[in-house]
């Protein structure tokens, strides 16, 4: 079972230009969502979903043009299924442009399952085996 999300995209722009699209709220709104983001560690901000619910965030790391991460939580006031997670962006200068690497991970719900020895992966692998065996 997959526990985290990873995507790599390539752009012909420089890391500085791509960085703008990750950190300037006006540009972020064009492809992601409206927000009151500021590239300051510890800054609390929110993305506004199209249905007027919020993603509640806090900036964790800012290394201009190379790395950005923030806490990504749902609005606990409106959902009975709270979760917290981390969104992390890494920009690498490559020939002809920029590699943008996204990791969305640290989902609390999965971390909880690894408290006990054996862990989540063991559980999932075992499940796959069990299901194969019953076929």
């Amino acid at each position, binding site marked *: *079972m997959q526990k985290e999300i990873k995507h790599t995209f390539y752009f012909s722009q420089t890391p500085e230009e791509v960085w703008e699209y990750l950190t300037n709220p006006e540009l972020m709104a064009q492809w992601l969502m409206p927000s009151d983001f500021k590239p300051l560690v510890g800054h609390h901000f929110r993305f506004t979903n199209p249905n007027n619910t919020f993603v509640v965030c806090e900036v964790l790391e800012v290394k201009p043009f190379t790395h950005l991460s923030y806490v990504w939580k749902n609005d606990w006031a409106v959902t009975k299924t709270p979760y917290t997670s981390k969104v992390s962006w890494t920009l690498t200068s490559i020939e002809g442009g920029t590699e943008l690497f996204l990791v969305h991970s640290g989902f609390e*719900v999965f971390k909880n*399952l690894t408290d006990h020895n054996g862990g989540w992966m063991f559980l999932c692998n*075992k*499940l796959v085996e*069990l299901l194969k065996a019953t076929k």
Partner: protein
Amino acid sequence: MRTQTLDAFQVIADPSRRQMLMMLSKESMTINSLADNFDMSRPAVSKHIKILYGAGFISITDIGRERHCMLKQEGFNELQNFINFFDKFWLTKLRKLETILNNKAK
């Protein structure tokens, strides 16, 4: 006892239920043998089992006088759906960014 309906996240939020899933991942067990590992009343164990069963994390088969619990995929699917949702979300957003930047480069 009223059968509680909890979603997959609420189901695994409880340490005892996580422990039960972990134990069942090693082997299928009877409710009695599961209960032996927990310092709680039988009704309390039964309640947890009922919740795991209700959310599709386990199946229960009666063999003779014993009730055997086994892991089941259904409950885990909801957790996977949650990840899949965000996977699709980011892919859609990043493609949008790609379009914007590609147009800008022209």
